[in-house]
């Protein structure tokens, strides 16, 4: 790992002539319907041997549905799949694996309490002797540059290594096609580079890769061919190396995506609105992260972003700042007032607002209407939603209309249950609910996670506008593109330590990557 790998990847990604001769998988007219929704509408897709094939599209474009049909977990309603020149019916994942199709999921299906070899054995049809399997894991993983220690317990391993387990599990079955769903969303830039090397090695051996991602720069770097889905249909095919991220994005969205610009307006920096002073908290469960001596000053007018790989204490930090987890009073100050031991509504009354990472089940109750979900966070902020203990449905409904208009929340009928909204629309609603208050301090965790490009641009612009109007905004994000787009200062969280925030202009991806990989920790320990 390191920067020298980077250049190697770049050169190796030379465009690969697309030849129609060696078709590995050929899907024709694949159709899948869910109720009234046509998730895939006569999709044609051809993957050649040894090709890294990108599947692009916004959320809800039908990417997952399509690959689930390839992996046998969904049955197509129409169309044909040809594999190596033969028409096949892939009835279940076992049949897919038998053909040589492997899949690495976005959300890992590993048992944390078991070790590496046990986890892999569970997924293999005939794992055989554990000792032999451990040896095979060691050999295969080393061969592909993904070294694993078979006896490590999964709970102790960082996310990047967990993904390796999934990939090695796939490789042990000697696949001819590997499907990867958003593989880099949990990796540091250096870990991602390592993954790209592995993928290129696989491709050079003739194994095909179907690569689902919304990170267009990556797709450009490593993919030989791209198929773009929109509303369940193939709208375009292209050679991504000949496109720019902007042209790829507009193909996906079907329109120009407005670029968000933070640098255009110079922030007028004011007083400290949120202060963290040696914030520490023990891990609440064996799988949680402890917070260690985190100090940060968030001033009026600026956006400070905290970068980091998932599971490094972001959730715990958010809970401490929001008041869902209590700490010592002086560790957190809002406009100078100590509030570490106060509840979330006390902090809301002090004009702070919070948007958690999980929109469904944390930021919103799935089975409740949007108007009721407004009451959820605003029942005690003086918005006349509760009068004498009674909830005012009328006022909540009015507010729902206002937020819907201001943030372009699209819904099939008025005031639906939160769970029926698409991810992007629900996120616009959850963010809009808080921005509607014009909060003095906004803390937002993963503002555009899993959100389509159009909604993401709207949310990012709203965050910047809020800061420029004199509020202080803290953004916790795993998306480096997003961070560089909106942040004035960047800090990195690693294993519960936070690095010193530095002006975004002075930061590079490499430096952020090094801090993610442990630099923040050493810096934090010294502090």
């Amino acid at each position, binding site marked *: 790992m390191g920067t020298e790998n980077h250049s190697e990847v770049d050169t190796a990604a030379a465009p690969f002539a697309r030849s129609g001769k060696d078709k590995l998988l050929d899907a024709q007219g694949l159709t899948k319907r869910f109720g009234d929704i046509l998730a895939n509408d006569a999709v044609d897709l051809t993957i050649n041997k040894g090709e890294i094939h990108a599947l692009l599209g916004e959320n809800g474009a039908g990417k997952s549905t399509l690959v689930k049909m390839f992996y046998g977990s969904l*049955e*197509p309603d129409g169309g*044909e799949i040809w594999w190596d020149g033969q028409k096949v019916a892939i009835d279940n994942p076992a049949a897919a694996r038998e053909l040589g199709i492997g899949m690495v999921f976005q959300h890992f299906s590993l048992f944390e309490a078991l070790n590496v070899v046990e986890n892999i054995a569970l997924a293999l049809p005939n794992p055989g002797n554990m000792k032999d399997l451990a040896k095979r894991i060691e050999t295969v993983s080393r061969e592909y540059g993904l070294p694993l220690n078979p006896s490590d317990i999964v709970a102790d391993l960082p996310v990047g290594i967990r993904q390796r387990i999934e990939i090695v599990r796939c490789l042990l079955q000697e696949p001819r096609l590997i499907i990867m769903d958003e593989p880099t969303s949990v990796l540091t830039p250096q870990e991602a580079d390592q993954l790209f090397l592995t993928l290129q090695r696989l491709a050079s051996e003739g194994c095909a890769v179907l690569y689902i991602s919304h990170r267009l720069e990556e797709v450009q770097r490593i993919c030989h061919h791209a198929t773009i889905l929109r509303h369940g249909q193939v709208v375009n095919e292209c050679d991504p190396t000949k496109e720019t991220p902007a042209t790829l994005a507009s193909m996906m969205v079907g329109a120009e995506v407005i670029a968000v610009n933070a640098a255009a307006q110079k922030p007028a920096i004011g007083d400290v609105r949120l202060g963290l002073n040696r914030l520490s908290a023990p891990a609440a469960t064996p799988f949680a992260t402890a917070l260690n001596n985190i100090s940060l000053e968030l001033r009026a007018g600026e956006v400070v972003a905290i970068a980091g790989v998932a599971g490094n204490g972001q959730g715990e930090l958010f809970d401490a700042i929001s008041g869902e987890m209590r700490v010592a009073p002086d560790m957190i100050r809002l406009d100078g007032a100590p509030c570490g031991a106060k509840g979330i*509504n006390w902090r809301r009354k002090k004009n702070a607002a919070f948007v958690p990472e999980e929109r469904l*089940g*944390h930021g919103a109750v799935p089975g409740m209407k949007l108007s009721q979900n407004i009451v959820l966070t605003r029942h005690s902020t003086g918005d006349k939603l509760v009068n004498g203990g009674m909830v005012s449905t009328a006022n909540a409904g009015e507010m729902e209309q206002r937020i819907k208009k201001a943030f372009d929340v699209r819904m099939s009928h008025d005031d639906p249950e939160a769970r029926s909204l698409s991810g992007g629309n629900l996120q616009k609603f959850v963010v809009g609910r808080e921005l509607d208050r014009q909060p003095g301090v906004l803390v937002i965790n993963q503002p555009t996670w899993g959100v389509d490009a159009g909604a993401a641009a709207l949310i990012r612009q709203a965050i910047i506008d809020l800061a420029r109007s004199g509020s202080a905004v803290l953004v916790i994000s795993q998306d480096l593109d997003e961070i560089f787009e909106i942040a004035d200062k960047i800090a990195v969280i690693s294993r519960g330590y936070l690095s010193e925030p530095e002006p975004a202009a002075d930061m590079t991806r490499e430096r952020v990557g090094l801090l993610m990989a442990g630099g923040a920790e050493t810096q934090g320990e010294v502090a």
Partner: protein
Amino acid sequence: MRIELVKRKEHSELMSLMSPLIAVGLTALSAAIIFAISGVNPALGLYKFFIEPLTEQWSLEATIEKATPLILIGCGLAVCYLSNNWNIGAEGQFVVGAMFGSILPVVFPSFENSLTLPLMLISGVIGGALWAMIPALLKTRFNTNEILTSLMLVYVAGLLLDYLVRGPWRDPDGFNFPESRIFSDAATLPDVFGGMMSLATPITIIIALVLALVLAKTIKGFEIRVMGESPRAGSFAGFSAKRLTIFSFALAGGLAGLAGTMVVSGSLNQLLPSISPGYGFTAIIVAFLGRLNPIGIIIAGFVLALSYIGGEGVQSGLGVSNKIASVIQGLLLFYVLACDTLILYRIRMVSRRAANPAGEVSHV
């Protein structure tokens, strides 16, 4: 052919209403089969069980009498279940409430005035709530499973009652029978509406209506529903799960205790070793059949009360064991929970791909 459950985007209003009705229908169908197996004409059995109790004044009165505690306990349990607190011990809270409510008429029989009844009812509420506090505190303090602790305390309460009526509280003039002294008139709930029902019934209906309002309109009701559906979102709203656990157990225990006191004061008029035909357990079915909604619970309470009277009816009239009442109650709960699946899912039939190699569209 394969049956698939397909998730709906939103819950179905129609199915929320239909699910208990479908469940009642399926229960009647199963009951008919059981009657047929026992050698009884199914139509006659169903008539005796479900219809006949409604045709005569005495059995109608008995149905109302049995429905009252079921509704009151069911309302309290609904608050627990809505907020994700699995209180299975209402039977014990009912018994302890009855014991607390009986302190005045049994230990201080000479205290007879207009305060006697109100004080009895209040102590019944306190008794039930205190008993419910044990599993609630164990849950909030030590994270114990409230299903186990509340259930086990049912048997403790039963033995406690048994000890009292056989020991210290035995009627000195009762020829050594295990029962307390008969309550004085001042300690007896009066009958209302020309003797149709005791005062317990209107009290219960009023409490159910107030609770319906609280659940539907107030911020407390909102808190209860949020906590039940997603505790994480509840804590984001600033609600405390622990406080709500204490609150809902106290409410359910208090209402069960009130029901217990009203049963001993209104119908039995004394403490006996056994004062409940399983009201606290049957009320669990009442709560679910009533959609955890107090108005629905009023209706469900009558349906389940019918099964007690109907069970006695088929035993005396047709010679079928009255255990059939428990069987039918169990079937009903089973069907209600099964049919609730339809609120968030719909059923569709899928033909296997092998059956239509032409690949024709097979969705519904």
